[in-house]
């Protein structure tokens, strides 16, 4: 069966420090991959999505970037974190076409 792993679960980082959040999927191939950020009262904001290795679509211009170095690996990065980057980050995957989408357990990022 398919599973999605996202880590770390929580992270406290100082302003100006780099960030790397990793998400991996098992049990499927060529998934669509997604990064979302959830802030209080603002719902689930799509940050990046990818339909294949090296193919990244950016939805919101900001201080973050994403990469997909392998088929089932999706990385969210920042060179210098801002206070406004704090939030709950969620990774998700879906099959090609219109299929179910499944989420990881999320990473609570606090920038101090």
């Amino acid at each position, binding site marked *: 069966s398919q599973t999605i792993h996202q880590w770390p679960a929580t992270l406290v980082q100082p302003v100006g420090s780099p960030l790397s959040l990793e998400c991996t999927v098992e049990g499927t191939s060529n998934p669509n991959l997604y990064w979302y950020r959830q802030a209080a009262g603002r*719902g689930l904001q*799509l940050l990046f999505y990818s339909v294949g290795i090296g193919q990244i679509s950016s939805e919101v211009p900001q201080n973050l970037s994403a990469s997909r170095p392998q088929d089932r690996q999706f990385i969210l990065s920042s060179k210098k974190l801002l206070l406004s980057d704090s939030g709950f980050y969620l990774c998700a995957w879906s099959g090609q076409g219109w*299929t*179910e989408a499944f989420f990881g357990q999320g990473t609570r990022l606090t920038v101090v």
Partner: protein
Amino acid sequence: SQELEQSPQSLIVQEGKNLTINCTSSKTLYGLYWYKQKYGEGLIFLMMLQKGGEEKSHEKITAKLDEKKQQSSLHITASQPSHAGIYLCGAPSEGGSEKLVFGKGMKLTVNP
């Protein structure tokens, strides 16, 4: 782009009561997901509706898709404290698109 509006934004009910929440789309709905989220956790997939008029049930939760109204409703029968959480609807931003967007969520509290 596609926007999903959920109503009500929050709801408090007594255990045993029935309730309905709605998700209305700004554009044509090509299908819709429903998820449930406990605070600080990932999203749990409930069901996916793929065509107009479709209705699905999972335990005491039933969801319907009304393409003409560009709306989906989720109905909970005889609510229990275990139903408490945030309910989110999501959909492709356009037909055939891999880009998935979500509503802001509806917070449900069930009092024993």
